[in-house]
């Protein structure tokens, strides 16, 4: 069964699959790409179908042609290859579990004797004489039935009496109901007034729950959330005349995170104790490590771990400047583009 033959899909889904498998021509691809840059829903659907396609590939459910297209056009990125590995492991786990469950719930293999148990009894057994214990059993059953019938008759008579009593009670209750209906009318008027008051209270409760939600949101913003990043040597640049800048790392810091944990790795310097400053784009200092940090040296690399408070960290460009512990010599720097969201 091939994915697109028997499995009915919407035109949009078919279009997404065609794009992902590289079946569209350049104009069609351009048009589709411009659409998913603009339409979040289409992009989300494409991401979902991408994963489904990966699952189908991992499960061997793609046609030969689609499988080749998948490998040529789709599977080049390491991220997608990782997803395929996940899908393969997940499929293997689920298939194994299903087989184990099926084995556990299926009946045990039958031996020679137990095979007989499942067979229909031969008809000639009906012709044998009835044993005495069965006759006595039949008599006992008849006596029991007679006793049960008597009990039912007695119970019926009692119920009949109860029914007459209930009818009397009904008449009495009807009279009482007439009296009560007058009270009900009065109560309804009171109820209307109560309803109006309750509506007013409901509005107040809604307002209060909105306030509580806002307060909770505010509180959650102040919880101790930490964003983490690792900046490798490729982002590091030494401060030398004519030296090239390292790569700029885009760092996503959630609005509610109140600190940013940074792990830095760079070519080993001559210093064991270092200081780090966060500089704004205009060169002003946003933050400096309160005390010197001890670098971990591993081979020809050094590592530093620091936690930067994010209270004053807004979206923008920053530099992390590493200096010697006495701040007399610069070791190097990193460039960051911070996006607060």
């Amino acid at each position, binding site marked *: *069964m091939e*994915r697109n033959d*028997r*499995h009915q899909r919407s035109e949009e889904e078919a279009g997404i699959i065609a*794009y*992902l498998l590289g079946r569209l021509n350049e104009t069609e691809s*351009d048009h589709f*790409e*411009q*659409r998913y*840059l*603009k339409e*979040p829903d289409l*992009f989300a*659907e*494409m*991401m*979902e*179908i991408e*994963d489904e396609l990966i*699952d*189908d590939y*991992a*499960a*061997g*459910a793609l046609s*030969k042609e689609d499988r*080749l297209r998948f*490998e*040529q*056009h789709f*599977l080049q*990125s390491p991220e*997608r*290859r990782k*997803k395929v*590995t*996940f899908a*393969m*492991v*997940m*499929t*293997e*786990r*689920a*298939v194994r*579990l*299903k087989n184990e469950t099926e084995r556990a719930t299926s009946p045990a293999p039958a031996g020679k004797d137990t095979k007989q148990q499942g067979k229909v009894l031969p008809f000639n057994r009906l012709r044998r004489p009835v044993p005495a214990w069965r006759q006595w059993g039949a008599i006992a059953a008849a006596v029991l039935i007679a006793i049960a019938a008597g009990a039912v008759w007695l119970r019926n008579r009692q119920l009949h009496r109860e029914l007459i009593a209930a009818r009397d009670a009904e008449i009495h209750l009807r009279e009482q109901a007439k009296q009560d209906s007058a009270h009900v009318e009065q109560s309804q008027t009171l109820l209307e007034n109560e309803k109006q008051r309750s509506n007013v209270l409901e509005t107040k409760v809604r307002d209060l729950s909105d306030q509580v939600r806002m307060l909770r949101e505010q509180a959650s913003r102040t919880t101790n959330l930490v964003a983490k990043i690792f900046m490798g040597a490729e982002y590091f640049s030494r401060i030398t005349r004519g030296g090239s*800048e390292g790569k*700029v790392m*885009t760092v*996503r810091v959630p609005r509610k995170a109140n600190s940013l944990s940074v792990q830095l790795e760079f070519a080993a310097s001559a210093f064991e104790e270092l200081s780090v400053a966060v500089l704004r*784009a*205009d060169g002003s200092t946003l933050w400096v490590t309160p005390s010197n940090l001890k670098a971990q040296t591993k081979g020809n690399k050094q590592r530093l771990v620091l936690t930067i408070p994010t209270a004053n960290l807004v*979206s*923008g*460009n920053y530099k992390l400047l590493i200096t010697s512990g006495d701040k007399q010599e610069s070791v190097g720097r990193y460039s960051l583009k911070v*996006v*607060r*969201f």
Partner: protein
Amino acid sequence: MPKEKPQLQDREFQLLLTTLGDSSEHGAHEYLNLHKRITTLFINWQSCAPEDLADETLNRLAHQLTEGKEINPASRSAYVHGIAKNISREHWRSCEDCKRRRIRSNDENDGDSLNSLPAIGSVPDKEEADEKERLLECLNECLEKMNEDERLLLLEYYSEDKTQKIVTRDRMATRLSVTSGALRQRVWKLRTPLRDCIDECAHG
């Protein structure tokens, strides 16, 4: 020798954020969403460093906005797509290594050969087997953390291979009275955090 790329100035970045959203915060959200979509664009074009190229695309957009270029919001995506396409062309021209890699991988995929990923049921070598074992351990650990209904749904979704997989999906959608698209979305929402959990467990 590739030429040094001009870095994005702070005011250019701020202008980009305020162009993308009503406020700086909304702009930051939009920036991240757009960055993700552009990264996917470069992944689909088989570029070597999709995230960096997405950065570069947005940097160029910011430069142009600073230079006074007016971009109609309705045609912004077409404009961004154009910038990304130019960057991709430059990237392929300058990145000989990437070109070679792409040609090689296309050559490897010619004919009926499967790529280096192990097929289900194949016998892996020692290193692959260890890695798979580790992933399976992490998978079990992460599945344990899930709510039971969600875990069973995912396991059922993955419980068949080959063509039976598609049949199972249709059967599940019918049983749950949802469309196949809604089932796909539900599974996607469960699968994404599970994958993150496994990733963190295996490599964290």
